[in-house]
């Protein structure tokens, strides 16, 4: 028995002739904060869609609590305890913020136990948690982009998840807001929710993650503790390019040669 909450096993996703993901495998420990990083187009969002049951993988499977996610209809994934946010936010534009969150509280994992009133009370609590109580009665379409991101998080939390997938919820936030968002995620994690965080902000992801998985061109190229992963040559290459790595190597070579040249005695005339 491993303590893993989520098993991601040999996932491949093909769109036409393009493999957006291939042979991606890792496990997520219960209570962990897993950072999922990679350059643009590396397949992070696709993987989030597979884990949340929106896409069916071409190969492999995601298992959670004895269920294969691919066998579970999208609307039942949240009842298993998996919730997600969307990178491109999908609010219910004509409902206010409070109603947006309440819908999650009505139909999520604990939804069947809640009355309409209880769902709205839960929504009020969560709006407080994500600092949206100030715009609770504003239509979602009238919210600012950072507020819409907060709303996404509140809606996902309203599902009472065990595993929360966060797709770039910090993009577009300023430094203070990122700090607040991280604080919020830590609090959520301390309540026992496993987090899978996709983020471009390296500083943010390093500070919160217990483990990092790096994707590049649809493959997993590194996995491990944040510091180790970021030092790995493959990751540097994926982010900064092979030319950069080659050039670094050339510079090192030149430096080496220069040093050698300095230490070596000048060639003596014969």
């Amino acid at each position, binding site marked *: 028995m491993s303590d893993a909450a989520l098993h991601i096993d040999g996932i491949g996703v093909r769109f036409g002739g393009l493999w957006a993901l291939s042979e991606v495998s890792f496990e997520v420990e219960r209570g962990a904060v897993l950072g999922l990083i990679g350059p643009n187009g590396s397949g992070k969002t696709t993987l989030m869609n597979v884990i949340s049951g929106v896409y069916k993988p071409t190969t492999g499977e995601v298992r959670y609590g004895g269920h294969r996610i691919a066998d579970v209809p999208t609307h*039942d994934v949240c009842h298993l305890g998996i919730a997600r946010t969307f990178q491109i936010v999908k609010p219910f534009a004509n409902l206010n913020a409070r109603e947006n969150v309440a819908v999650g509280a009505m139909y999520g994992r604990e939804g069947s136990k809640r009355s309409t009133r209880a769902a709205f009370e839960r929504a009020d609590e969560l709006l407080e948690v994500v600092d949206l109580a100030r715009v609770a009665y504003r239509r979602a379409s009238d919210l600012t982009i950072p507020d819409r991101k907060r709303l996404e998080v509140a809606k996902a939390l309203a599902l009472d998840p065990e595993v929360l997938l966060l797709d770039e919820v910090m993009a577009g936030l300023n430094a203070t807001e990122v700090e607040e968002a991280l604080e919020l995620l830590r609090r959520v994690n301390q309540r026992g929710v496993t987090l899978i965080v996709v983020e471009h902000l390296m500083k943010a992801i390093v500070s919160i993650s217990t483990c990092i998985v790096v994707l590049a061109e649809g493959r997993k190229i590194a996995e491990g503790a944040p510091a180790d992963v970021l030092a790995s040559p493959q990751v540097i290459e994926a982010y900064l390019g092979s030319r950069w790595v080659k050039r670094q190597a050339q510079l090192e070579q030149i430096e080496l040669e220069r040093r050698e040249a300095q230490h070596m005695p000048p060639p003596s005339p014969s």
Partner: protein
Amino acid sequence: MTVAAAAAALRRAGLGGITGSPLAFAVVLVAMALLLAVPFAHNGYLNNVFRNILMYAAMAYGWNLIGGYTGYVSFGNVTFFGIGAYSAAVLSAHGIDNLAAGVAVGAIASAAFAVVIGIPVLRLKGHYFGIATLGIALAVADIVANLDALGGSSGIAVHQVDDAHFSIYYYAMWLVALASILGTYAIARSKLGYAFVAIRENEDAAAVLGIWATRYKVTAWAIGAMMAGAAGAIFAPANGFIDPSITFATDANVFPIAMTILGGIGTVAGPFIGAVILAGANELLQRYFVKAHTLFFGAMIVVIVLVLPRGLVWLFGLRGGLRAWAKSLTTYKA
């Protein structure tokens, strides 16, 4: 400050929200109470006019659940009205003239048809759904016109109770309209209503929040079908005769949609307000312009949709009066 505070208190009490303006809802209830008085005029013509308004209101509420709340624009809801009417006619042919029995059978038959048709058809989205429902409406009308058991295209007589002013049918229709209004209100105050609206706003996001879209779309269509079916089951004996061209009429299909849009799509008060105005206007135009009334009627709908795209109920919630409305004309974005 007091207005804002009162509005905030109403919102906290859960009023407003997806029911639409509470004030507009109150106006509808008062109007319904007043409509109870119509039969006291002992005027068969008036009873017919107002019974038609109530009938269209019930059909508009039926359409509002799927088209307004759930966002699936159906052009086939007249089918449910027809199924209700023919259910009552068939019962009557077998010697069962009980209105309540007709309404029950008509509503249940319509809902059953909505479930059977809805499970495949509600997988379609947007225009495709609309076209499919229109096709079904035309097909059902043609099938009925060719079924000798139902009188074919020449129709079928329905037994009428002996009532000089048709007051029984008037009150029965009033009850069906009231049930449609209160039913819609109850749905809009419940979790069910929020499932419908979530599907309308974004079906994918709704699914991620645990809403099984197919189930709730079929539910919305079936409940709406019951409203139209019940109205049809009263119309049949009230009219004394039905045939496919009456029960599956284009008017009966389009009017409820126009009424809901005029009154306020996806609100509790909208369909009633739209039904009173459009059915009333249609009646008057028909009286004074025997041939050209449809022209005026059509022009009226166009103008209303242009100047009031969100319906009359929206005006109830508008702060700033006429100036705010004028401003909305220039800044409205679909």
